[in-house]
């Protein structure tokens, strides 16, 4: 059994599609599979992939490939996760690219990583207005809200959305994280976000830190 989780982690870290495919099948054939260990292997594996992306060993195409493959595997394993959900409520995350901006690749990878870490992700897509963010937080009660801006001309729409959440007394109900080439740590502080991640790889450790673990 130990090997199954190690194998999964290795398949992810090496972006080995064949190995991942065989692990996918093995998991389904293993009635006693430990979902927590499965999620942990995925998270550790994806974190390592993220580090390899950051260091220049892996490229975006490879990141999208493994993110998609793992999301597909998790989809296949859904019945296992659902069994667990009865005992524990699944945490929700709302994500979106802000108004005026359609750049969504980084946001999509963050979404895949959150899904792979066991979150239910509500992806609002791109060009998302402040009102839409407010509505989604009101309706879904997420623990995390992720907003992305790639353009220097659209980053102020992050502030607009956070201000709208404050007006609706929803700001403190959720941890707000931001990312994208147009923002940085200072900007996050200035607009009262809870955290900033420079890339998709940094997002999961940041969320973990903000939530005090998963």
């Amino acid at each position: 059994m130990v090997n199954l989780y190690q194998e999964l982690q290795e398949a992810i870290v090496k972006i080995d599609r064949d190995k991942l495919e065989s692990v996918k099948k093995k998991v389904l054939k293993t009635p006693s599979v430990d979902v927590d260990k499965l999620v942990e292997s995925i998270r550790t594996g994806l974190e390592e992939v993220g580090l390899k992306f950051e260091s220049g060993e892996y490229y975006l195409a490879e990141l999208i490939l493994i993110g998609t493959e793992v999301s597909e595997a998790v989809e296949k394993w859904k019945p296992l996760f659902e069994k667990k959900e009865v005992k524990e409520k699944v945490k929700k995350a709302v994500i979106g690219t802000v108004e005026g901006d359609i750049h969504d690749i980084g946001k999509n990878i963050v979404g895949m990583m959150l899904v792979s870490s066991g979150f239910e992700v509500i992806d609002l897509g791109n060009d998302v207005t402040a009102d839409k963010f407010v509505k989604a937080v009101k309706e879904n009660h997420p623990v995390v809200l992720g907003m992305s801006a790639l353009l220097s001309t659209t980053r102020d729409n992050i502030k607009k959305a956070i201000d709208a959440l404050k007006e609706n007394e929803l700001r403190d109900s959720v941890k707000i994280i931001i990312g994208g080439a147009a923002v940085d740590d200072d900007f996050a502080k200035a607009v009262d976000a809870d955290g900033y991640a420079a890339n998709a790889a940094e997002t999961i450790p940041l969320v973990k830190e903000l939530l005090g673990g998963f």
Partner: protein
Amino acid sequence: MARLSPRERVEMVVNHEEPDRVPVDFGGMNTSIYEMPEWWPNKTEYYGYKDLVNFLGLKDTPKPYLNSGNCVINVDDRILEKYGVDFQYLYMSMPKPKMHPDGTIETIYGLKVKPVGYYLEVYGSPLAGKITIKDIDDFNWPDPEDPVFSAKARDRVLKMKKSSDRVIVALASFAEQIFQNYAWIRGFSQMLLEMQRNPELFHYLTDALLTVEEGIMESFYSEVGEHIDFAYIAEDMGTQQSPFVSPKQYEEYWKPYHKRMIEHIKQFTDARIMWHCCGAVAPLIPHMIDLGVDILQVIQPLAKGMDAESLKKSFGDKLCFEGGVDVQRLLPKGKPEEIKAECKRVIRILGKSGGYVFAPAHNIQPDTPPQNVVAMLEAGIEFGKYPLGK
């Protein structure tokens, strides 16, 4: 050195020689300045071409025409003259876009775009989702023999040549890119996945796309080829951090098509090749050199590995660079004196022994005040004279 013509000046820097001064590109494709179209919905505050014209106190400036990036293609000649601009751009004509009731605009390849924020963005890839080879065969490809592609091209290039001695860069608009068109037609993530999970379909679509583009380019370049100095390729290949694909993947999946594209263009013209590429693409530069690219535009300095020093050190004797003045932070947020100091630094590094064209690292964005644009343009004249100081 006596004053050279733009053609002589640019030819020297491409050959890694020092002319009278560093050539300047401004007002061209991806080196121009933003302006909001009159018909734009949800108008917001911005700085644009109009502010630059007003700041410079110019009266009776010609009505600005905009390219697909909402940037001005006919910058007032008085600005180009004053700041020593050496380039002019010839755009291929395109089929008339179709307007849809939902506010989207359908352009070539069935791409739907719509105004978002300050730009037209792709909103609907015509070949998205699950497709087969048959869908590619049945796709409503543009007709390369559509007379629009060659319409008045020869007259326009001759007029251009007569009215100014600036170097002519020709753009076979939207036919000079395969990576980007694939991404738009099929979806960006889908393209990257397809390349790795379904290479057969990937190659079939890329070949089909390039075959159509070759036909369009033939219609255009056979009319203008003998009168132009550069043929333009517009392929963005990188994020802020690294290329979209690994250098190995580039070599395997994309380079053969870029090679074919460049060889095709060269059948109709002796022009040199200018490749526009945003992002952190340093790991792909050896391939670009190998493909015979002469100028790499636009050198985005905040992207990883794209700083002036390391590029000049690694590739300075093999490739001519254009751009390098940051439009992401410096130009919108910097003070004029900071902009001048940075331009001086970039010119002195990249301009050493030729091999550099002074230009912004992309179009000037709508959050850039006009005094900052002027500081950049002035710096080109002030610090660009050879011999460059230390």
